[in-house]
């Protein structure tokens, strides 16, 4: 009878299992670092918005020029992209959902603040509220995401806020209710009008004729990310 060294089989198994365990621990460590990084960005944005709000309250005593041009947090876009990527990789677990809810809240606050500042300071940005779903019931959301990403690159002053329609967040539900957005996605809110279904680049340029002027003005401001991948 030939030899089979069972101890060796067991030893190899233990080493392999140890490699797997180490990989799992390393993965957990790196992933928690990433979540920490996302939280840190959210905290920074939150602080930025609070600061802008405070500046805004001081407007009565100060001129519009005193308000920092950077109040529109540059990091909202980065955060959105990273959240979308993490959601793709991990799925919508509780940790990700919480981060996403906080992020959506920040988007809404940024949107409201921008509206107030633009009224006071005679600043006229174009807003697009984009509602998508990533529950597999919105095949056109992927294409709409591409269109809005492209528009954002082409018209830097265009302010696009993307919201997951199904996210459980009372502020978002209120926004949806105020704008009377139905669950017929993708949906865009432009100048208080809701547009349902896929809108191509030309459609949006037709809806917003001022876009061409914006292209020429061209100063870069941050906008939110467009989760074409999370719409999958």
């Amino acid at each position, binding site marked *: *009878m*030939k*030899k*089979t060294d069972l101890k*060796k*089989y067991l*030893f*190899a*198994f233990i*080493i*392999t299992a140890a*490699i*797997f365990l180490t*990989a*799992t621990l*390393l*993965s957990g460590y*790196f*992933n928690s670092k*990433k979540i920490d*990084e996302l939280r840190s960005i959210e905290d920074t944005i939150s602080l930025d918005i609070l600061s802008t709000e405070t500046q805004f309250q001081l407007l009565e005593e100060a001129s519009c020029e005193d308000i920092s041009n950077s109040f529109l947090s540059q990091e909202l876009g980065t955060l959105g992209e*990273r959240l979308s*990527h993490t959601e793709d*990789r*991990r*799925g919508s677990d509780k940790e990700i959902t919480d981060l996403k809810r906080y992020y959506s809240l920040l988007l809404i606050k940024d949107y409201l603040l921008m509206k107030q500042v633009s009224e006071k300071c005679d600043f006229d940005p174009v807003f697009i509220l984009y509602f998508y779903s990533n529950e597999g019931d919105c095949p056109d959301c*992927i*294409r709409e995401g*591409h*269109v809005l*990403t*492209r528009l954002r*690159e082409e018209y830097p002053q265009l302010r696009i806020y993307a919201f997951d329609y199904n996210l459980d967040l009372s502020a978002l539900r209120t926004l949806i209710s105020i704008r009377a957005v139905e669950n017929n996605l993708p949906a865009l809110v432009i100048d208080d009008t809701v547009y349902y279904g896929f809108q*191509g*680049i030309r459609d949006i340029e037709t809806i917003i004729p001022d876009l061409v002027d914006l292209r020429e003005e061209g100063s870069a401001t941050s906008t939110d990310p467009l989760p074409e991948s999370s719409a999958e």
Partner: protein
Amino acid sequence: MITLPIIILYLLFFISLYFEVFLLITYFENSQNLKNEEENWQPSFYPSVSILVPCFNEETTLARTIESLLSLEYPKDKFKIIIINDGSTDNTQNVAMTFASHPQIEVYEKENGGKYTALNYGLTKTTSDLIGCLDADSFVNKNALKKIAKYFEDKETMAVIPSIKVHNPKNILQHMQHVEYSWGIFLKKMLSYLQALYVTPGPFSIIRREVYDTIGNYRHAHNTEDLEIALRMQSKGYKIVTAHQAYVYTVTPPTIKKLYKQRLRWTYGFIKNTIDYRFLLLKRKYGNLSILILPLGIFSIFSVLYFTTVVVWNVIEKIIEKYIEISTIGFHINWSNLKPDLFYLNTETIAIVGATLFCLSITLVLMGRKMADGQMKPLSLDLFYFLAFYAFIAPVWIAKAVYNVVFSKKTSWR
């Protein structure tokens, strides 16, 4: 996200990693034996040896093969070459006859019947202690036979296989095979220590005469008679070892088509012979071959197919995504998205395990190169060719071999 394909992938990675770890343990366990073998290779006696050279249309390589055999350092009265022309339709017979007058050479001609018939014919023409075979597209190193003879000092050793290297690699395909053969040298040495060799390759494997007397001659064995006879020997508990310093050089297929045909035959032969010898599977009395190597051989075929399917599926998905994007907004590159960002580095467990598996595979390949060429040469082009192309072309013949087995389609030699 944990899905069924990911779970299967984890399982495949675990088993692959387990095998590589097992090989590494075997290597470290036998490092002293390896050193002893390398230092002490001169045989104390020289058994008589006959080398069978079956040939079918080998007019271009036969003369060099015979000349390399004649230049072997081995007592002339103990060494004989038997050329068997298996019904060649080219000038092979005339080339063979130019050696007919040599005292160590006998030339025979028979009707074409396939390699195994030529070998069996040759077996009837010799009474030597040891009988080997050399394909007529292979050449031997001068001291290869002496190094092989040394291993027959152990009376339990019934067959010794050499280390096969690629002869004069010229194109990308042959350089790629050069790395593959180097890895094969390492693998076969480890399988030798595990007593789990499942093939006695055509180029210069030497077998004791009594093996044929006991278990019979070569069989058709799905055109892989060298694999079948090894399995038959293993089923009888015979010891097969590797003389890793006995080098044989073989001409490898220079074109994709020829490589495909060769590998299709090998893979098909492995599957069919494993099916024929399925009684060897998962029985402790047959040793590591039964418990580990044969099951892993089958596993590797299906894991390659599964992994390839996953990769192809992902590529198709990406192409569809890109098509949707281009058809929606036209072709456009956002250069700012191309900036490297560590955040997007995949740090999932499967990715870390995959990277570990990849690094370990490269380490084993480099160890094979060290064993074969004396140095690792980690930055050589042939290693790049191997990494860049092999994984893409191997699944093709593996898939076809499985298809042929499932639908009972036979493979041919040429």
